């Protein structure tokens, strides 16, 4: 039995679910950021898999773009976390409630 498209998609879905769980449930902002990276990776896997199976290079080009944007996003996100840590001495997401009524 060879490795088919569905295996890649299942892997992608599992990774996405793990990432989503991390984003919604974890308290540490750094962990949330890491979870977002996992979700992006899941998307990338799916993209590459579709690209391979549909004989089209477009998906792989997108993946390169996504990785660049994800790197930039991670840099910005970490910078924000550091800035907020300097003010509040915490990275607990539940304490960030400035948008509360």
């Amino acid at each position, binding site marked *: 039995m060879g490795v088919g498209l569905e295996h890649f998609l299942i892997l992608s879905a599992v990774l996405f679910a793990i990432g989503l769980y991390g984003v*919604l449930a974890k308290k540490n902002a750094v962990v949330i950021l890491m979870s977002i990276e996992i979700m992006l990776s899941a998307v990338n896997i799916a993209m590459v898999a579709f690209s391979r199976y549909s004989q089209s290079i477009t998906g792989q080009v997108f993946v390169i773009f996504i990785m660049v944007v994800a790197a930039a996003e991670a840099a910005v996100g970490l910078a924000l976390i550091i800035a907020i840590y300097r003010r509040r001495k915490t990275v607990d997401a539940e304490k960030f*409630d400035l948008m509360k*009524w």
Partner: protein
Amino acid sequence: MPAELVLAIFLLPFFSFAIISFVLRPFFNHRPLLSGYVTIAAIGISLVLSIWALIEVSGAPHHILQMPDYEWVVIGDTVIRIGVTVDALAVVMLIVVTSVSLMVQIYSLGYMKGDGGFCRYFAFMSLFTGSMLGLVLADNLLFLFLFWEGVGLCSYLLIGFWFHKPEAARAAMKAFLVTRLGDFGFLAAILLLYAKTGTFDIGELQNLALTGAIGGTVLTWAAIGVFSGAAGKSAQFPLHTWLPDAMEGPTPVSALIHAATMVAAGVYLVARMFPVFASSTTAITTVAIIGGFTAIFAASMGLVMNDIKRVLAYSTISQLGYMMLGLGTVGVGISTGYISLEHGLALGVAVGIFHLFTHAFFKSLLFLGAGSVSHATGTFDMREMGGLRKAMPWTFFTFLIASLSLAGIWPLAGFWSKEGILAASFHYVPVLFYLAIITVFMTAFYIFRVIFLTFGGEYRGTDQGSHGLHESPVVMLVPMVILAILAVVAGLLPINEFLGGESHSFFGALSHPLAWVSLVWAGGGIFLAYAIYGAKWLSAASLRQRFAPIHTLFSRKYWFDELYENLFLMRLLVNGIFAALHWFDDHIIDGAVNGIAGGTVAVGTVVRRLETGQLQAYGLAIFVGILAIVACVFIFS
């Protein structure tokens, strides 16, 4: 006569108004007399053109000049054409307005000298004269209404000329609002006539009324509506309360607007629409009764006033009542069949307008005399005058002539025109004749009371001392002398015949017993005034005590001001309707707006609890939402 020159009669004063407002006032304010000269020149030319028109009309067939008309308003298929009517009635009015206006403007040069608002005064006076002449010439009800409101506006502006005086500002407002009440009826009548006939043209409306194309209730209501406008302008009962207060304006204004011209516009309107009125018995009877009643009602209040201008104001109301009476009684004569339609239409206009003509001269002269007196004494209160005969011989002499004319003494102007009215009421409505003849007595009494209090006896003023009394400057005396001459001869001019009335010979009038009746009553009034205020055989104070209730009734003006202001204005309007509207505004309108706002806030207070500020909670909500959408897509697609 070229049509352009007829238009120039009323356009020239407007032009003068424009020059004063836009050139003289901004750039030549340091030479205010210029504005007076411009006004006088414009009105002088108008007078010359009016005399020319008079000559042309008297030579024309049926006393009417054919004039071109112009397109004014085009709305779809509806075209409103305007033009001018140049007939006997119009030219007589033109002569009255331009000549009295010219005299008053010359007089004003002296009277208003040194006033800070000199330019403004003459600008308004020009505007007024232009509007009044336009009113007289207009051949179209809508066009006429435009000028009708124009003279009302000028009246407001000139009564409130010294607007820094609270009484003047108040009087101006009162005049404006009370006449507006009448104008409401007038406008409604114009619209009613238009709705029924599709025309604003006065000539066409007259023909339609005479041929019976409009009639019945519509015609009656339209005529009564027009009369309500006329009653407001001419200060007829029950809209008379504004005119005495209007005396707060400068005296030449009272002489021109509130004695000779604008207040006579109501009478002119009834005369102009006379065929319409005469076609409705109810309407013309109303005119006659209101006129006759106003004549005696206003005269009774004039008996007891202490302010010289107020006596003259009540006298004006009373005389305007006479004019309405003259028009009304002849109209009643027509509708009851005592007089043929063709003859009656001309006679009614002649009777009413002839008195308007003579009254304009002697009443404006009386006002100018009152102004001259106050120029010397600084007051209008007759209790602080007296003995002015020696100091002011010219003023006294002209005032005396005007008073005799007003009292209707042969052969002065007032006699001839008043005779016509008395004769008409005697023949057609005898009941009103008795009111009119009592009014003759009252008129003679109150005007000679003024003479004896002002010019007779000794000077009673305190503040200035007798050495301050002086005759007025020549520029004021010349117009008064000219008007005095007119007050003598105006009745002898063939105006009555020109308008279609009956002619009288100079001595032949005295052969009629009616003339002697009115002369005896007038003489009795003069004698009683002499007995009380001249010779002092009867004490004014003891008479006042004996007839205290009547005196109070007259001097409090039958409590009409109180009735209107306290009952109608305060109780009914302010505390009744306005209070209800205020409550509605406060509770219903504002309540609805505030209720919606309050409800929104209340809902928001509950719903905002959902906004926890937790990003992860929002994320979860988004996730659940997307799941729900996807589920829906799968289920329903």
